[in-house]
């Protein structure tokens, strides 16, 4: 139908019976109820979306036992005494039990019960510690520590990993139940908003830095495999 007809027949319609007053009243009531329901529903969904949803989305696990980075860093001076580049330039990541046992033995060195657990549960039985890696990237990602440590403008660990080296307690490991990613990849903030460079480890963060440093985001195959 075109406009003219419509206005006509709606006037006609208005003319017969129902006065504007009644109409208004009817609408108010209807809309009134509607509005109340609207507000309630909105509030419930909105709040649960912000407050409950994140709780549901992430599971939280504790490390097998607490690892005192601060202590080890001071003892071993520096991160690279445990996390280092191999001869072939690849990165060793989390040290294997073997390398821990270069210092540790079945007999604990200190008094902490965490070390006690370590010694009896892992050293004694020679089983690797199932550490939960906060910064574990997905399988499709190829990250070259060598390039970032030995490249043109070397970076320090903190710029991506934050101040974990100064931590005495391991924070609980939070895993996204859907994706299986560590929460640190997306960032603590549910919208993924970051304050510090190390608050997030998504591709965009790599690209951002690459753009600044190299003038180009880099080709896909630079960081994917």
């Amino acid at each position, binding site marked *: *139908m*075109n*406009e003219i*007809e*419509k*206005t006509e027949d*709606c006037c006609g319609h208005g003319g017969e019976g129902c006065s504007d007053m009644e*109409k208004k009243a009817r*609408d108010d009531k*209807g*809309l009134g109820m509607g509005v109340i329901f609207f507000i309630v529903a909105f509030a419930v969904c909105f709040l649960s979306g912000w407050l409950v949803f994140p709780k549901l989305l992430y599971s939280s696990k504790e490390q097998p036992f607490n690892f005192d980075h601060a202590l080890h860093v001071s003892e071993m001076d520096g991160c690279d005494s445990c996390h280092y580049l191999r001869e072939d330039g690849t990165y060793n990541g989390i040290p294997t039990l073997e390398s821990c046992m270069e210092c540790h033995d079945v007999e604990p060195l200190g008094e902490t019960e965490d070390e006690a657990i370590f010694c009896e549960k892992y050293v004694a039985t020679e089983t690797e510690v199932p550490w939960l890696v906060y910064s574990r990237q997905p399988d499709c990602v190829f990250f070259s520590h060598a390039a970032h440590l030995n490249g043109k403008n070397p970076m320090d660990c903190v710029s991506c990993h934050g101040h974990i080296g100064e931590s005495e307690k391991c924070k609980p490991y939070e895993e996204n139940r859907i994706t299986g990613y560590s929460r640190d990849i997306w960032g603590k903030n549910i919208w993924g908003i970051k304050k510090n460079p190390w608050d997030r480890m998504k591709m965009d963060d790599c690209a951002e830095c690459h753009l600044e440093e190299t003038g180009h985001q880099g080709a896909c195959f630079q960081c994917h495999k």
Partner: protein
Amino acid sequence: MDSALIPEGVKRCSFPKFFIGIAIVGAVVLWGVYGMLVCWLKGLNVTGMDDYYGFALWIWADLAVIALGGGAFFTGLLKYIFKVDELKNIINFVVILGFVCYASALLILAIDIGQPLRGWFIFWHANVHSMLTEVAFCLSCYFAVLTIEFIPNILENRQLDKVPFFHNLSHNMHGVMAIFAATGAFLSFFHQGSLGGVAGVLYGRPFAYREGLLVWPWTFFLFTWSAAAFGPCFSMVVLRITEAVTKKKLVKDNVIHLLAKISGWMITTYIIAKIIDTIYWATVTAPSMGLKMSFFFTGEGNGPYNYLILITEIFLCGVVPGLLLIVKSTRENPTTRLIAIILGAIGVSLNRWVMVLQVMAVPVMPFDKWALYMPTWPEIATTILPVAGGIIVISLAYRYLPVFPQEKELNEVTVE
């Protein structure tokens, strides 16, 4: 029982009768949905596609429905921009038709891609060089536009219209419809075109590749033109079917004649362009890649892809309907007109088929072979699914909405 919803002053079949009809079509829909689930759960290995046929029935269906739905944007263009006022009597209907076609296209795309949950990457990680990106954006935008164009008609439903809010909403929307129509026309121009571009830019595929203007190969313009030309044909076909089913005349002849005439001229001009394009391709483009035209239509194992398909597309389903619709006598004779619009609808579908499937069939490496393809039931079911869905939408719209302004006048209801 649903009489309260039926527009005033028009007659509709009894609800049970209507319900049975819908139920039958609904069964087909269910079959389609089952096929869809199979594709999603088992993966695309259930289809007849392979590494030579990455594009097949589905992509054809997409291109075809969008071309056929082209009636919406073109009629809209005529009515709102060029103010061809008679078309107001059919505009609601073509809008619904367009809505159905575009909804179908989007649904099929969602099944066709290997990782549906990543479908949104096409927007989020868009590659501006890709014709498909252009398609995706324009397609979804135009679908939104069609929805907006459809809404006022829905709001005119007798019950909804009682709500002043909706009443006024639809009123005001009608007011601004011209803007949407213009946007729609613009968007359509691009995505119809970019669908043509999809094939035309494939410079590794001599059968599809076309030179062109700036970033757009000739197929870009041919597709837009053909959609505008053949879209209305399809609209008229469906209208004719609706009239047959409802045993009613719903739109006055002068409207149809007008649309048919416009369509006729569009088809004729298009087909001339198409013929020129084909000749240029056959004599310049393909030879520059070392291939004779005969190679594409003859040769061992070329299956159905012979000259016949070319002749059918261009002459039988192009030139013929074009002429039938520009000649007054044949245009106004219901039978010849019906033949013409049916041929037209077939023609454009055939063109899309060729531009998708024959492209895949033709070997490019001299030591490679022709590849043929046969769809499987899930593909067919999921392709029929939106058609059945469309039938339901149209039936509902016809039953409960004042789609045809002239219906009342053309069919005086004798209240007994």
